[in-house]
């Protein structure tokens, strides 16, 4: 149990253990008894351990309010005067980035080694500008009113401006910085491109994209709808 607790402590601190940075802990993690004890802790504290080659990660369960990312964190993460429309846009940007990285249909879902910020902006433009070009009936059928508002908000962002944060590129970069702070990507080449870390690759390939999560994901959207009706 002592080893399991040590691993738990490290997972709390860093979110992960690896065979290179935490050699001893990782080798203890491979021990069946330690592993069982760790699973016990995980069950009681409402998180799961995701194993990947050469690493393991702590992933809070969906309803875990003790360890997980909170609504307050979202607000702090975006900007001081954040509005719902900003949160919506940031969420959509992040999910588009994940899709651009891991939307492959082969056995290996990862389809890009790096993404240029300008290409992320173009990808977002594909959808968000389209909402102004299709006919009204089709748009209302496909998108929610708030999504259309969010798209309008995106289109109103200038392509270039002195205050770069207000531009489309700046908005994408802000979302990227959040992902960087969570150790999911690195931003390189003078803030012009991003690369997924091994952590993001592992979490996506060995957990996040699992078909077993489909009910959980449905619940996220259905749960949201139920809350909206309340």
């Amino acid at each position: 149990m002592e080893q399991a607790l040590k691993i738990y402590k490290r997972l709390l601190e860093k979110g992960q253990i690896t065979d290179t940075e935490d050699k001893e802990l990782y080798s203890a993690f491979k021990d069946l008894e330690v592993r069982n004890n760790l699973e016990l802790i995980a069950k009681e504290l409402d998180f799961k351990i995701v194993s990947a080659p050469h690493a393991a990660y702590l992933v809070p369960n969906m309803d875990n309010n003790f360890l997980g990312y909170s609504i307050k964190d979202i607000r702090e993460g975006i900007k001081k005067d954040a509005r719902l429309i900003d949160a919506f846009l940031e969420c959509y940007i992040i999910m588009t980035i994940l899709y651009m990285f891991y939307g492959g249909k082969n056995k290996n879902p990862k389809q890009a080694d790096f993404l240029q910020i300008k290409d992320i902006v173009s990808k977002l433009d594909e959808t968000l500008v389209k909402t102004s070009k299709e006919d009204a009936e089709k748009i209302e059928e496909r998108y929610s009113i708030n999504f259309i508002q969010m798209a309008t908000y995106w289109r109103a962002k200038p392509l270039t401006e002195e205050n770069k944060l207000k531009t489309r590129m700046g908005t994408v970069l802000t979302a990227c910085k959040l992902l960087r702070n969570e150790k999911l990507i690195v931003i390189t080449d003078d803030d012009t491109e991003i690369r997924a870390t091994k952590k993001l690759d592992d979490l996506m390939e060995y957990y996040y994209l699992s078909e077993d999560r489909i009910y959980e994901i449905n619940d996220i959207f259905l749960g949201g709808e139920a809350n909206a009706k309340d």
Partner: protein
Amino acid sequence: MEEILSGFNKRMEFFAIVDSISKRRNTSDKIESLFTENEMENLIMSVLVYIMETTLTEEEECTIENISQFIKIILPTYKIEKNKINVKELTRYIIKDILQNKGQSREFQVINYDKGQPEKIDVRLISDKLNEENKVIYELTKQGYDFLFRTKEVDDELGFKIEEIKLKMLIHKKDYKKAVSISRELIMKIRNKKISISQFSYSLRNNINNISGEKYDEMVNSMYQLLEEEYKDMKDIEVLINESISRIKEEEAINPNLDDKTKKAKNDIWTISKNIRTVLDMQIDILTECKKVKKLYMETLKESMEYSLVKTYNFKEEILDKLEKANFSNILEIYQKLLKPLFLPRVNKNLNINLIYDSQTKLENEEQEKYDIKQELLEESTKLEERIKRRNKAHIEVMSTLFEFASTHKEGFLFNDYFCHIRNNQDISNMLEENLIFLQMLKLYAIGKIDIEEWEKENIDNEIEANGEFDLSYCLRMIKKESSNFYGIKRITIKRNDEKLNFEQSILKENEQNEQKIEMTNFKIEVE
């Protein structure tokens, strides 16, 4: 027949590489149009040669800045106007968009006669990695190196052996001067092998899915076998050069005053000996690395198979498409839950010791806070919507009154005439807010001409609202609803005028009355 096509896929790999350069994707008309025919192909190949030379002959790292500097040096050879090109942008285009295909793999279908079926091969001439300062550095891949080598030098595997034989012969013939350069070549070649194996190990650790069994076999097993043979040959050469050293030493013992020719030979022999040692050490390093990689591959493969997902869901359908139907009222929960599994645990905030004594309050606070944030965000969002509506309305008012005024002043008029007219006849406070009317006139001046006939041809009939910014097409659509013939106006042209106007208005901001002065051109408006 089939025999002559054995290994045909290998021949086609060469073709696929050339295709990746000549039929490059992600092309930019803006950049390509600056070059004449085939210049860009020359430039891309030059960049590849530079990357090869930098990574093989120097110990320095090949960064985008180095490549950019290189392009800057060779660019005058191309018939291109210097002031039209942004070298940094050109470098990024060649590296990221063309050679790295925007980070996505580029596949080419070839027929494998040995297997009796088509197969897809990856084309990837350069690879990159992050150094300790998180700076991206570039190297040729094995494929890139093999390709480049075949364009001028000889086959890699054969090449090393030939160079070894040459070196042996030259030492026998005591042609040490030439032998020095051959020994340097050997260092370059072995260094390339070292780079290949380290690239392989890097991608193995990061994503085993990128590595096929064949690639592993080629990289580790074949390389190991070849290296063992080459190592034995190098050891023989070392014996030879040691014999030469002994002979020189004997000669020196008999006659301490060596002539210039012998002195030069002595220096060359020492250099060759040092280079041979470097090659041998590197060969040992690579052989050891091969063994490590073999073990790493097996472990990673086993773990990857154990943990990998049996099936994945369709990310676009399950997440992106559903997000398109989400609402402000539930977006925070969706955001939080979608990202919770990926984000770091929030342990520091949640394990605050004070919270142990205050657990109930915390829960209440959090719930209250959640409610407050949502409420506040909703209110702000509503404010934004109201502002968009107000601005759209004002933009239409400006355009509509301008058309109406123009219909009674077909001889043309000045902006001030129009402005005084509307100020005296209606409430224009909405148009004055955020200086909207003045900014709109500047935008109209930038557009220059409003041609109704042309607009009618291009106008797509839709009901989409403007986003609060001035949208001429949107305003015209709205005016058309009021007056289908646009008050009989066909064209309005806004021209510059030397006369300046000064406007003063008082604005109520944060309960304080402020005076604002605006200076603008008294635009001349022509009507048809």
